[in-house]
């Protein structure tokens, strides 16, 4: 057993403090200790993208970081971008365009897309597909996810 470390993190706008064992993955910390069940662990090797969160605004894999490393960081999970009745514009677009079926990949798709829209022009569907290539969906065939991102992007850019 290795020594625990104290961390302080701003999680979806709320500051929390906890003691964590070094080997605790950030994703497990968010799910198991905080109860943010929107963080989905699929592959635990960074390939599937389901656990993607925003760390200080940048998309990262929650399965490839340790909770202890997040000390002092601001973290946004899917729970922090919108809620039933008050969806984030990208969530609304996923709803409007039927961009999800089972929903397992959806939190990662949303947070990845928010970062992609911020950092890349996404001038055509090919660029959107390329940007989302690190997020795997086994239900939709991607078509509607690409549509949802394409349709939401201009509004999100204008809102900034």
């Amino acid at each position, binding site marked *: 057993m290795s020594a625990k470390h104290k961390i302080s993190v701003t999680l979806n706008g709320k500051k929390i403090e906890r003691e964590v064992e070094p*080997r605790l993955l950030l994703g497990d910390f968010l799910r198991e200790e905080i109860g943010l069940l929107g963080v989905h662990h699929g592959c635990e090797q960074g390939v599937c993208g389901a656990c993607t969160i925003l760390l200080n605004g940048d998309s*990262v894999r929650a399965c490839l*970081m340790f909770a202890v*490393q997040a000390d002092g960081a601001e973290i946004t999970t899917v729970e922090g971008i919108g809620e039933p009745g008050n969806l984030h514009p990208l969530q609304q677009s996923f709803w409007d365009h039927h961009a999800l079926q089972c929903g397992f990949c959806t939190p990662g798709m949303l947070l990845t897309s928010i*970062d992609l829209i911020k950092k890349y022009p996404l001038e055509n569907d090919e660029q959107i597909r390329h940007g989302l290539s690190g997020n795997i969906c086994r239900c939709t065939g991607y078509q509607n996810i690409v549509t949802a991102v394409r349709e939401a992007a201009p509004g999100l850019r204008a809102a900034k």
Partner: protein
Amino acid sequence: MKPPAFDYVCARSLDEAIDALGRRPGEAKILAGGQSLTPMLNFRLAHPGMLVDINRIPGIDAIRDDDGGVRIGTLARHRAIEVSDSIRKKFPILTAAAAHVGHLAIRNRGTFGGSIAHADPAAEWPMLALLLDAQIEAKGPQGARTIPAREFFTTFLTTALGDAEILTEVKLPALPAKTGWGFEELSRRPGDFALAAVAAIVTLDGKTIKDARISMGGVGGTPLRAPGAEALLRGKPADAALFEQAGKKAAEESDPSNDVHATADYRRHLVSVLTRRALTSAAEKAAQG
């Protein structure tokens, strides 16, 4: 699976990190972006007793102009390289290759030095360090030293770095005038490691090739240069038949193996095609510049 237990040190300076590594020789490992190390821990393919986190050491992520070249701090994220103006200006081949390194979330976190220290033969940064004759700087208990890229990659996932040595910075020396570049990679899906990749630079004197360098990824235990193909090009007029011939030579000089992704024969074929394309594109750019 979940990672095995380890002790964790968050170093605040290089000296503190070197000291921590030295206290648990052979057992302590550096944690940089964690985009290669953490999967290995999650699958229990690695069991370090201690991780020394270098993410909070100030200043080691800087990208600086240097003598016509560039110095890249070990902790520079892949994403920082993708968007750096000085790299775009001096080494646009890195800007182009950055788009091939994993996905945005991987690029946001993974580091330049981590990739070079990890030394995956199919990774972009190691093969480009070899192409650009990078000077790799390391610091350890015995002090600082500089290792030329040609001596750095020893075998599969293995480098010349000692146990308690930290890769600190990579210097990319200035390229001569009239030099163009080409980067060609084939992977099954965007963001996957390359089945084969070839990077080339060509320096022209009028229509004659003054110098050419070729580096190959994914086709050997380490990234490889193609000295025979390079020699064949030097001093000759740049033309399509010559590039075709150089591609064949480079394929002979590659050393691919069979795996689930592709056969060695297919990879060797890719080397000849990708080399021809990379040289063609490099010569075109050199003629314009």
